[in-house]
């Protein structure tokens, strides 16, 4: 029995050593929003090219997990595609806006509707408008495609359109790619996705006459947009490498990289 106990202790220690891989040396570790993968990946790559010997890591877990990770000290910088909630700020976390992401409202290319107002979009998503003919399209039932509860894109979309907790989704999918594929294969469908990820298989709608683009997002005329946020601990100083990365991504040099990733840097 004693022997078994010793082995169990060894086993537990082995497992513990797996989980204890925090930041060390010349590494900056980031963790969080999957929507930010493209932009943070491009920034990290550029950072590693500019600073030989420094390593950048990114763990695509989701905004919530990223915020938890930084508050537990498991990464240097957390990535969130929504602003911090007040209880998260109360835990001693600070947010810095890195850039803005427009959320595009997408329909099937066969759909004849090209423009909706925010009001119409929120009526569609709350189930008040159920047929495309009510907004100038053909006589087809509207199929609402959305993201899963907790997704940054969903949170961004619902808070801008004022439909939080009221959406009558037909499908809740777990990735931007799934949303685009589904909307692309169903002419009844409407969905939303990060502007940077939208491709030709779907049609982007203009909102209140403004089509989504960098300009319209920066000047605020395109309504459905959200911030991409860097999350750090207020009371803990970043490591030298992490500080260097942090300064770099907010510098003017990084703006071009951010732009090329399809999102809009701050002015």
């Amino acid at each position, binding site marked *: 029995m004693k022997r078994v106990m010793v082995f169990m202790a060894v086993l537990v220690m082995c497992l513990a050593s797996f989980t204890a891989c925090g930041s060390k040396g010349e590494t900056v570790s980031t963790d969080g929003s999957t929507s930010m993968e493209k932009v943070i990946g491009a920034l990290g790559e550029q950072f590693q090219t500019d600073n030989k010997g420094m390593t950048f890591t990114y763990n695509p877990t989701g*905004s919530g*997990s990223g915020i938890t990770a930084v508050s537990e000290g498991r990464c240097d910088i957390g990535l969130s595609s929504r602003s911090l909630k007040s209880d998260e700020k109360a835990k001693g976390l600070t947010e810095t806006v890195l850039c803005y992401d427009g959320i595009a409202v997408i329909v099937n290319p066969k759909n004849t509707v090209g423009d909706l107002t925010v009001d119409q979009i929120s009526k569609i998503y709350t189930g008040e408008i159920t047929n495309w003919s009510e907004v100038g399209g053909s006589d087809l039932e509207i199929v609402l495609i959305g993201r899963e509860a*907790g997704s940054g894109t969903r949170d961004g979309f619902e808070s801008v359109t004022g439909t939080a907790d009221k959406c009558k989704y037909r*499908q809740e999918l*777990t990735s931007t790619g799934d949303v685009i594929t*589904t909307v692309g294969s169903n002419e009844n*469908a409407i969905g939303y996705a990060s502007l940077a990820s939208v491709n030709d298989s779907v049609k982007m709608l203009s909102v209140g006459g403004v089509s989504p683009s960098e300009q319209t997002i920066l000047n605020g005329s395109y309504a459905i947009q959200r911030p991409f946020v860097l999350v750090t601990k207020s009371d803990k100083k970043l490591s030298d490498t992490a500080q260097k990365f942090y300064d770099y991504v907010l510098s003017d040099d990084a703006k071009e990289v951010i732009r090329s990733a399809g999102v809009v840097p701050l002015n």
Partner: protein
Amino acid sequence: MKSKNFERIVHGIFLILGLVTVGCVLLITVYLIISGIPAIKQIGLTNFLFGKVWESTSSNPQYGILPFIMTSIYGTAGAILIGVPVGFMTSVYLAKVAPKKVKAVVESAVKLLAGIPSVVYGLVGMLVLVPAIKNIFNLPDGSSLFAAIFVLAIMILPSIISVSMTALEAVPKEYEDASLALGATPIETYFKVSVRAAKSGIAAAVVLGVGRAIGEAMAVMMVAGNVANMPKLFGSVRFLTTAVASEMSYSSGLQKQALFSIALVLFLFIMLINATLNFFLKREKER
């Protein structure tokens, strides 16, 4: 003396390796119970298990998982309803009737089916099955419980076929010979003698299929629509597995704890199924 030490060391290494598995099971069980209980306590067991509304991120969150439980039960039952007759007939055919060449081809196809990753089932379901259901039944959208049942039925075929085939092939030849000698036709013999003799093995195959169906997440996530509705055949539904998988990545606080509680419920379901499976397998051994 030296060789004795060597024996001891090897013995120790084997013991450690063996304990890794035991340790993992213990770790998972303990972890699930520890992280699953708090949310159930906070929500209340009845509210949690029998609540019909799941709104985990709403400003007034509700955590009722009855829709998920019912969907998992309906989905699994549906998959068994379609998968078992097909799988059972196939296994009788392969074990008893099929010519050697046909048997070899079909058997390797079944093995291939077992090796296809579930995300591929999901992808094919999403791109082929879901639009087909939409068009055939004239629905606005095809992702539904029905699509999930269909995908699950195909996914459980390999386990049902291979396990019941093994059971049928293990039936002593004398039984069948005796039946044939008494004047029964081959088909009568297979169904009335062989199948009856192999029935606990076939039951084990069914239970294994249930286990596979109830535990599948990826494939059903891609075809079921994932909205927390009470199950409707052509409605969008969410299973126990997909409830955990779809919200886990962005969850926080009580929502995350509640997801662990769902996982605990799922774990209990699987334990129950495993116990049933062991019961059948044990009976088969004793026979």
